[in-house]
């Protein structure tokens, strides 16, 4: 065997994944929120042609993998990617690349800026060792395009609406478009059931007289989502957190709790199911 002495666990840490063709590897790149610049894209194409077989694979997490790189060429390929600022991704029991939707910069529904947020999370947590793989996602609003609820920690933008009697023409549009029937109307007075509200902003965006106003806007923290063999949708840890530094404190408390209590090869969500959601939430929130 030509490649004796290669430590696959170590290789996975730096995003080099052995293929079933044992002398060949997939290079997983650290693409945050699915964004690369043109120079980086050109370099990826060049590396795939020179060191791989020309195929470039887009992953399910907005990342890029260059497949079929012969093991003797890995270092050279990695160094060349670094010349345009592309770093290697990660595999194995650690924090993976952060997924993000376009957010409020371009999307009409976006309630938060997502790319900067994803970069901040990536900078702080990427590659950190965890009991099992660990995935973050940042999605701009409850439409949930970046699937925050399928990630170990999902950050979701959202708003809390508030009804103002002044100006309201009692058209009843809000009652009919609220996706969770959280709005009701009695004698011309509109009422929000905050337990039912999913913070999506459809009412505030559509109200013809802007009688539904945004009272609060920010981040909602979701914990314990996963797909895989035993899928589990994430649970809400918080309501709307308005401040980004506060948000980072919630993330840190949840992340540390998992690192401390998660068993080897146990995903965050499955740990929550073992310990109990209410206990886990209580313990995490107590740390804030």
């Amino acid at each position, binding site marked *: 065997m030509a490649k004796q002495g290669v430590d696959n666990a170590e290789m996975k840490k730096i995003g080099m994944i052995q293929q079933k063709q044992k002398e060949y590897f997939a290079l997983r790149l650290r693409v945050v929120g699915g964004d690369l610049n043109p120079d980086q894209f050109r370099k990826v194409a060049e590396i795939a042609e020179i060191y791989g077989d020309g195929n470039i694979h887009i992953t399910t997490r907005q990342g890029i993998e260059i497949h079929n790189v012969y093991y003797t060429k890995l270092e050279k390929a990695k160094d060349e990617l670094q010349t345009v600022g592309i770093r290697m991704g990660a595999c194995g029991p650690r924090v993976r690349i952060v997924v993000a939707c376009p957010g409020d910069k371009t999307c009409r529904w976006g309630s938060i800026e997502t790319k900067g947020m994803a970069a901040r999370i990536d900078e702080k947590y990427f590659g950190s060792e965890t009991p099992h793989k660990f995935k973050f996602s940042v999605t701009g609003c409850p439409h949930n395009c970046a699937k925050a609820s399928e990630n170990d920690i999902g950050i979701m933008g959202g708003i809390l609406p508030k009804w103002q009697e002044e100006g309201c023409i009692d*058209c009843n*549009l809000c009652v009919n*478009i609220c996706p969770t029937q959280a709005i009701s109307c009695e004698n011309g007075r509109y009422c929000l059931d905050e337990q039912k509200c999913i913070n999506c902003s459809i009412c505030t965006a*559509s109200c*013809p*007289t802007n009688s539904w106003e945004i009272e609060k806007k920010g981040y909602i923290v979701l914990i314990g989502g996963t797909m895989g063999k035993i899928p589990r949708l994430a649970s809400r840890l918080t309501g709307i957190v308005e401040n980004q530094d506060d948000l980072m404190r919630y993330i840190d408390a949840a992340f540390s709790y998992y690192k401390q209590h998660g068993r080897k090869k146990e995903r965050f969500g499955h740990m929550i199911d073992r310990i109990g959601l209410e206990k886990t939430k209580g313990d995490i929130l107590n740390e804030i």
Partner: protein
Amino acid sequence: MKYKVAKRLDLHGVPCPMNFVKTKVALFGLECGDLLEVILDEGEAIINVPRSLKDEGHKIIKVEKLEETFRVIVEHG
């Protein structure tokens, strides 16, 4: 609902974004302050069309739930 509507439009079964385009065309023939009655499907249609009309400067006056559709009164902006 008692409104003096200048025009009626049944868009039941017309998908997005054609339902919005047809509404826009209908409004094009009306004057500022005129009312248009539109029948829109539940789901995407009732969420998207009123919001797009707001973006264009028109105003929803009333929404009434029918069976699988909504009767929507729009005021030309």
